[in-house]
């Protein structure tokens, strides 16, 4: 049936967990583009047929006309599905820049197509250049601050750190009560986690 494959592609997108990427389905994607080319061929041959009969393509309403219309509409629908697939994935990819930063972990990178990887790189560069022209880092302060101090647990041996006027030994698994601004740099590097009640 026409359009079934494109529907499956979009359904894959819709049934995935929100904000999570499913692996890029290049197989199915290529099948749909192949279907598009097939539609186009049939469309052209029908139109040729109309022309050979010496009829005007714009006004003729015979079976060839309606046949070609079906091929045209199926093609347009396939295009919309393909675009939706890539467009919505691009939206998730952009949100990843905010969530995980400019370098993607291996397991996410594997799910992207080649052009998607390129897009991710280009878009984070665009974002980076905006922030440097603004001279303000927008990737910190993602949640509204409640308390200037937070409780953290150290996840990795950081060692002795000098902050303000005192030195603290951030040994692994130790817990500390720190200024949020001091702790944030460690948290974003995955060296500490915030403890919440």
């Amino acid at each position, binding site marked *: 049936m026409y359009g079934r494959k494109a529907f499956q592609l979009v359904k894959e997108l819709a049934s995935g967990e929100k904000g999570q990427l499913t692996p890029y389905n290049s197989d199915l994607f290529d099948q749909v583009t192949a279907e598009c*080319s097939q539609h186009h061929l049939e469309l052209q041959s029908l139109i040729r047929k109309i022309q050979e009969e010496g009829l005007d393509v714009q006004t003729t309403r015979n079976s060839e006309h309606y046949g070609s219309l079906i091929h045209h509409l199926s093609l347009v629908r396939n295009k919309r599905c393909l675009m939706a697939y890539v467009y919505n994935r691009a939206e998730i990819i952009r949100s990843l820049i905010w969530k995980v930063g400019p370098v993607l972990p291996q397991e996410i990178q594997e799910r992207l197509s080649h052009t998607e990887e390129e897009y991710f790189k280009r878009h984070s560069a665009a974002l980076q250049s905006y922030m440097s022209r603004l001279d303000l880092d927008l990737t910190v*302060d993602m949640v509204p601050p409640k308390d*200037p101090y937070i409780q953290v647990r150290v996840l990795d041996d950081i060692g002795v750190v000098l902050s303000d006027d005192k030195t603290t030994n951030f040994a692994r698994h130790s817990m500390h009560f720190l200024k949020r601004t001091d702790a944030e740099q460690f948290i974003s590097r995955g060296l500490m986690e915030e403890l919440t009640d």
Partner: protein
Amino acid sequence: MTSESASTPGIDGDYEALISTTDVELLKRAWRNEKAAPEILHFESALIQRIRGQIQLMEETVEEFSGSGIDPLSVSLYQMDLDRTQYLLRSYLRIRLQKIEKYTFHISNNSEVQSRLSGQEKGFARRCNEDLERHLEESVLSKLPDNYRDILKQSLISEENDMVPEPHLDTFVVCKSRRFLGPFQLDGSDELLEMKPDDLCIIHYKSIRERVQEGEIDLV
């Protein structure tokens, strides 16, 4: 005694009026509007410039205080105030960026919307548009038959751009008026609405859009 107590409400009123026009309050209002509005609003360039100056000043003050042995409690209060302002500023700019990312094709085709962006945002929007266009071009459009390769139209025979995601202006928003608004006509309908200050209203964004842009109505 009586004269004193009589004058207090006046002072309180003045104080509240004064507080509500500090730059931080104005930023909070701009942030709230931006957050709730489905479309991108005018960039508050003068306000943002003032806020950034104030943040710098506050940072210097906090640094100076914490070096000079002033009561740590008041230093941490200053710090907290500073943190909140910085969050507001960053979040405000972030929300705008996300709207630019989301409606990049709509923005690049519409000079009225473009005029609402700051210079830097315009640069970002342009790159955003180029990148996404290129990505869609390479992933999808180049694989389609010739007549179906347009990025804004479904096919060559579409008369207008029918593939551009646009903000939904008829979504509902919660809003309140800053002052008494006499019966006014809602945009796009013949209904009349009267709003008292601080009355909460749930209404189509579309129908109060211009009043939000003029600053008469705030979104919540």
